[in-house]
């Protein structure tokens, strides 16, 4: 038996989460096969071998020239059908989860998304199911965990990003070519066009995020937050209360259904710290809450806090920065 890892890549650029999936796959003690989709990924063999892939399966087809969930799903499902691996592990990302959902649907197998860890000892004994896995996975975007049991001949799982730390396990991989049989209809959901974003600091990568919540009060009142953010080389983020009110665009929203941020410092201004906001902010190295309410959840969970009206505190911080720069 083997473990199959689905390599996530975009036109040949590998997603780092793939190495986490390979690391998790290695822990199962069976040979790890990695499948790459499309000829653009043929150059990834060495990187995959360095992370423990014993065999790299290169699937080639005209319909795999770019990403397409149906074409990718059927290709992986066909390979699983040929080789019956004991498990398929993919990245817990938009694409990884999407592809395994297709594989699960095609093969009528259960699929468990966003796992943190799994215990393959079959600790539970359910009637009729061979060697179920006991899995810990995330719910509510990470605010809650679930233990579940997965019973299937081939286990389909994705690893939540950062659940395991990717490590290398240098080796040499053999390559194998795989020609899936895809029909023209598989092409209907292949990407037809792309618009590349201008380079620059994004909410997800900014070193400083100044976040504003309902406490900011209006779209105009974000101006001092913008000013502070630009002084710090950062960007403005916000809570869902703000986007729901139409004060700012959803692209600024931090949280479970927004963006996950990981800045050196997050200044959370007038944000109560609801659990769905917190999961988007908790990877910040430091959090400073500015809130009139000393009992606010954000204040309790933050590393630092200033108790006070953000409309006074934020401009005062900006003024102090300018004062020191001009001194």
């Amino acid at each position, binding site marked *: 038996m083997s473990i199959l890892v689905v390599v996530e890549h975009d036109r040949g650029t590998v997603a780092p989460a793939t190495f986490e999936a390979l690391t998790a796959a290695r822990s199962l003690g069976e040979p790890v096969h990695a499948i790459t989709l499309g000829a653009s990924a043929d150059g990834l063999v060495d990187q995959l071998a360095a992370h423990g892939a014993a065999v790299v399966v290169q699937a080639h087809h005209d319909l795999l020239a770019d990403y397409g969930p149906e074409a990718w799903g059927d290709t992986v499902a066909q390979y699983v059908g040929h080789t019956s691996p004991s498990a398929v592990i993919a990245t817990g990302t938009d694409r990884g989860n999407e592809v395994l959902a297709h594989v699960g649907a095609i093969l009528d197998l259960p699929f468990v998304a966003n796992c943190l860890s799994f215990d393959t000892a079959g600790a539970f004994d359910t009637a009729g199911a061979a060697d179920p896995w006991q899995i810990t996975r995330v719910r509510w975007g990470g605010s809650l965990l679930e233990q*579940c049991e997965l019973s299937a001949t081939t286990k389909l799982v994705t690893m939540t990003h950062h659940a395991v730390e990717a490590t290398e396990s240098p080796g040499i991989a053999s390559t194998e070519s795989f020609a899936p049989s895809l029909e023209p209809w598989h092409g209907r959901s292949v990407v037809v066009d792309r618009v590349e974003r201008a380079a620059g600091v994004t909410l997800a990568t900014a070193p400083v995020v100044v976040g504003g919540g309902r406490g900011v009060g209006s779209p105009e009142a974000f101006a001092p937050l913008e000013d502070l953010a630009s002084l710090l080389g950062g960007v403005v983020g916000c809570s869902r209360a703000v986007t729901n009110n139409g004060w700012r665009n959803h692209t600024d929203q931090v949280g479970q259904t927004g963006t996950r941020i990981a800045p050196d410092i997050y200044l959370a201004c007038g944000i109560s710290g609801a659990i769905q906001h917190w999961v988007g902010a908790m990877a910040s190295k430091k959090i400073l809450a500015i809130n009139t309410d000393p009992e606010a959840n954000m204040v309790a969970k933050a590393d630092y806090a200033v108790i006070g009206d953000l409309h006074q505190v934020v401009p005062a911080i900006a003024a102090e920065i300018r004062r020191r720069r001009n001194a």
Partner: protein
Amino acid sequence: MRVLVCVKRVPAPGAKINITADGLAIDTAYLAFTTSPHEECAVEEAVRLVEQHGGEATVLTLGPAEADEQLRYAASLGVAKAVLLPIVGADWDPQRTAAAIATAIAELESADGPFDIILFGNESADSGGFQVGVRVARSLGRPIVNGIKGIEVVGDGTVRARRESEVGLEVYALPTPVVLGVKEGINLPRYPTLKGRLGSKKIEVGQIVPDVAAGGQRMVTLLPAAEQVGATTILGHGPDAAAAVVDLLEELGVL
């Protein structure tokens, strides 16, 4: 144009999620319920599609009898028809949920004709299985793309759908009938009007009792996520705290 949107009733926890004594559910004694945010946007999108292209929108949920509340909320926003797939007790696993929904859709379509567009959320807020929509689309033999942040019906039975990626935007051109998994941010959902709310009380909620077998994923227990607890350092009160904040920013090297 006939549009169907599938939503799930979920609790709306605030600062903390409490688990029941048996470990199998969120303690909802003091909680309100809502529709997952991605699905709220899917409902809004369904209503807009019908406003632009004519036709009718239907909302469907599989859940407890109380999920009537989420169906009527959708109706208050402009969805014309509502269907409940009633279940008793714990949530169904994703395979089972999808099989029940696919069966119900087949039944609705054989009565009233196919849905041109079926909308799902990208993932449910609570269980986040990332799959019910995909399973339903596959069993109906229709294309599906997830993560959609823009939908445009371009005529000749083609829908252009946009999604965000690491590097920018990806565009898909999909033939109808089509299934799409929508993400929050695709639109800004409206609030119900008084008239909408009154109207939603009167609609008849159809029922299709689901009867399908459980799938291969079984929940054993819920666990609290590891909390990052530590004391908060209060840097001061009001604008006088600015100097201490800037000292901190200097210390962290972000200035």
